[in-house]
């Protein structure tokens, strides 16, 4: 999602300094540009951890945490959109979902676990490929209010 009205580089540059120098806030202003970035609680995290950041999965999660309500995986396993290769997916982008409705299956130790939506609304995005492995807490769907 690139915008020609937001100078992402400029913001990134300031954030970079915030991280490198482990600051809680940086405010920068020049002719026609003003950038202010802050990180409160997570400075502790900025202090080593981003340095010592986890491998792939967790980083991705940090960066790509999607907006809106999210249905995330309650367990480690393999994600399936449908109960069987033949049957249709439980939900697709655009389908309405209600609390408690089954949205996918996660297979763990040969067990097919039906995952229910914690949210009401419309499926805005599916964040995982069919038959892909997922870890605990990994976002599966993004749900937006109908």
């Amino acid at each position, binding site marked *: 999602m690139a915008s020609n009205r937001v100078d992402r580089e400029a913001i990134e540059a300031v954030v970079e300094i915030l991280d490198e120098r482990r600051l809680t806030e940086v405010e920068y202003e020049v002719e026609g540009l003003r950038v202010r970035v802050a990180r409160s609680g997570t400075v502790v995290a900025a202090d*080593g951890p981003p340095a*010592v950041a986890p491998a792939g*999965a967790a980083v991705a999660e940090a960066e790509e945490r999607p907006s809106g309500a999210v249905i995330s995986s309650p367990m*480690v396993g393999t994600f399936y959109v449908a109960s069987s290769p033949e049957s249709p997916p439980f939900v697709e982008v655009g389908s309405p979902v209600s609390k408690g409705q089954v949205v996918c299956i996660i297979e763990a*130790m040969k067990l097919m676990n039906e995952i229910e939506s914690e949210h009401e609304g419309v499926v805005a995005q599916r964040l995982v490929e069919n038959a892909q*492995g*997922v*870890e605990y807490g990994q976002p599966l769907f993004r749900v937006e209010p109908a």
Partner: protein
Amino acid sequence: MFDRVLIANRGEIALRLIAACRDLGIGTVAVYSTADRDSLHVRHADEAVCIGGPRSSESYLNIPAIISAAEVADVDAIHPGYGFLAEDAHFAEICKDCGIQFIGPSPEVLRMMGDKARARRAAKEAGIPVLPGSVGPLATSAAVRDCARRVGFPVILKAVSGGGGRGMRIVRDPDDLEDAFHQAQREAGAAFGSGDLYLERFVENPRHIEFQVLGDRYGSVVSLGERECSIQRRHQKLLEEAPANQFGAERRARMNQVLSRALGSIGYSNAGTVEFVMDDSDELYFIELNARIQVEHPVTEVVTGVDLVRSQLLLAAGEPLQAVVPGPVDLSGHAIECRINAEDPETFLPSAGRVTQFAPPGGCGIRVDSAAYAGWTVHPYYDSLVAKIVARGTNRAEAIQRMRRALGMCVLEGIKSSIPLQLRILEEPAFIEGRYDTGFIDRMLA
């Protein structure tokens, strides 16, 4: 050899396992709880899978989550490290059923060693000296009385499936036996689901001596000599050394031989530690067998030159012992390990929190095993081990001197640690003379 191994543990031992895998060119998959996102084992593994919440029951003890992670990541073996699922026969069986190699002894052996009374019987039958006591579990207070009379007081009652002092009773006066028996039964029942008890002669302040063994799948076992682990506080080891004091090569050779034969006959495979008590007449008596790699394994590695975790991987992959540990192993020099725990040196209470600065000691004769770094958090959910510092010397005096230096030059801030206590131990005349038993710490603090 394995392509990918799942590391079913955390902290320093997870790093130790990853290192051994890297040395053998084996890929690694770390699992971690949400509390361990920023830990070094997650960083240094080739792949990392979050398996659950902070509590061990949700993550590092969560068998379905770990097996699923193993399947999703498509590993061919799992190394459990120590603690958590390391000696869980049920877990080992599930691995087997899923076609994943559990790096440790067979489920059968794990089950046998998990039952203290059976382990004791097996050891006795295999020719390992055991304390006078009951052959199997004792059902009735009558049986207990007879057994105690035969063995002679003081005696100790232990839970068959016990551990950590629960369901344990020391009885010095025959009149107390009846009550102690019933209390211990209730306690054991509550703690372990089984109230079965066994009885042994109780040795007052024994020395704690343990032997390191390695076995292959084909019945050959080698014993790599002993470790002296008598410096304990409430059954928690604080400092270990190898070789043991006043032990002697001749006796070591004899015990190594006895244990190799005995464990071979039991069909013991992979790494294990045989624990003994030593009474004041220097007799050794079998206590239990820890069917896993031990926290204190580095002291044996340092004096024997054998990489024990590497050996575990090779043996689990089916290598014959001859190929893993070729030729005779002899000890050279002396090694001492201090377990640096996050705890208050006065109150001994765990001191969880954020490590604001950590600069471990290094230099001549020092090995450090640690997963700590500046900014790392010691979580209340897990054990409080921050680092293992091992000092090697050509002799014991040099090892002690280097350990003093290393602890003195260890920068660890933000939490309290056991370092002051360990520095004090290193100054105690009884320790310096190498004449101490499991009563050492209480006497020192008295």
